[in-house]
């Protein structure tokens, strides 16, 4: 058994297949037994499917990379940059990032109007639609829309949340410090 194991892992079509001593002569003609048929009918569509899936993934990657790189590098302009490029951006749809100026938020017939500020520049905004839940004064927002004259017409407000998390605890020291600062300033 150990000296001359049956060549179970050997390919029957390999050149040395017939040289194996002791093994009965094999009928190497194609056959129509179920194993052969399974292999033929099963392999081809599976291969086509797999190659198709790979091609799809490659195409999807290309589309995503193209779209992504085009827009991701300038996902938004800050307010001051947008004001600087106002002439270039005229008529273009783009994203503008800034902080909502406290006290400027007013509800209008079809949405809300407010002023955003960033880097020393301010732009008044007319937004159509309901603002998101977290919208409010001092909140950093990314607006989608375009310049209409001096004003920015927005139809989507994205809230830009930073990576700071605070437990909603009314007694926390931080709040007390903020209050103290405001008291000192006012």
């Amino acid at each position: 058994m150990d000296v001359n194991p049956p060549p179970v892992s050997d390919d029957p079509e390999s050149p040395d297949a017939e040289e194996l001593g002791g093994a009965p002569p094999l009928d190497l003609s194609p056959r129509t037994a179920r194993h052969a048929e399974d292999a033929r009918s099963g392999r081809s569509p599976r291969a086509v499917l797999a190659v198709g899936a790979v091609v799809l993934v490659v195409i999807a990657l290309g589309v995503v990379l193209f779209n992504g790189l085009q827009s991701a590098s300038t996902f938004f302009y800050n307010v001051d940059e947008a004001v600087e490029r106002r002439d270039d951006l005229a008529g273009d749809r783009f994203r503008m990032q800034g902080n909502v100026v406290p006290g400027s938020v007013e509800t209008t017939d079809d949405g809300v109007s407010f002023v955003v500020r960033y880097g020393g520049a301010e732009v008044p905004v007319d937004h159509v639609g309901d603002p998101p839940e977290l919208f409010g004064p001092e909140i950093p927002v990314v607006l989608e829309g375009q310049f209409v004259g001096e004003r920015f017409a927005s139809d989507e407000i994205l809230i830009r949340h930073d990576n700071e998390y605070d437990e909603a605890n009314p007694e926390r020291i931080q709040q007390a410090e903020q209050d103290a600062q405001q008291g000192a300033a006012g």
Partner: protein
Amino acid sequence: MTIDGTLSPSGADAPGRSTAPGSTSSRATRVLGWTSLVGIAALVVFGLWITPPDAQLGETIRILYMHVPTVSAAYVAFIITAVGSIAYLWKRSEFWDLLAASSAEIGVLFFALTIFNGMLWGRITWGVFWRWEPRLTTTTVLFLTYLGYLAVRRIPTSARTRGTVSAVIGILAVVNIPITHKAVDWWRGLHQEKTIFGTVDPEMQGTQLFTAYLGLTVFLVLFAWLLIHRFRLAWLTERAQERSLDEAIAERRAEGSAS
């Protein structure tokens, strides 16, 4: 069964072993399984009840206790895939090939979960499910790359070709992890910056931070449990395929001697 002997990951699988284990579980996996079950229960209690809501985000922050752990487990999984791929090209052993493949599969699962719970978070916080901003774009590329890795492994070919091709992909794909991870620092986007990793001083405190670390631990244990099971399943699948090949050859041989 000479194949068994040379490809076996340890000496335990002796050549000629005909009785394959009927289960992929062992004492180690049972311990890991129970640990993750208890851990998940604790995470639910901490994440949903004990931690206070966030000052700005409110209840939404609870999604982060799962979002950060699932993406961390996915990154670990993809790094294991890369290590397994390198080791396969070096050692050419079935063990490393199957480990890389198993890890990639579970990584894709956790990554899909991350994208899903991240989209829920985005809808509530940003106001939209999706924007093609840098972190989300690189994330999509990463996800598609590993889907491609798994698809390539399904192409019928010899085990060696499959192992080689997928190992090359497994090594190339991991390059995107640092890009994805640093995307929030390198480009402007919507996604907030890193919450725990890469920050010397984490931007969380108290029970929030504890719950985040608890979630991380729990999901890593869960990942280890799934990985061991998946690897053993892959190993058994290979043995079953070998056996059916052996049987087919034996049958063929019987036909040949009969005629």
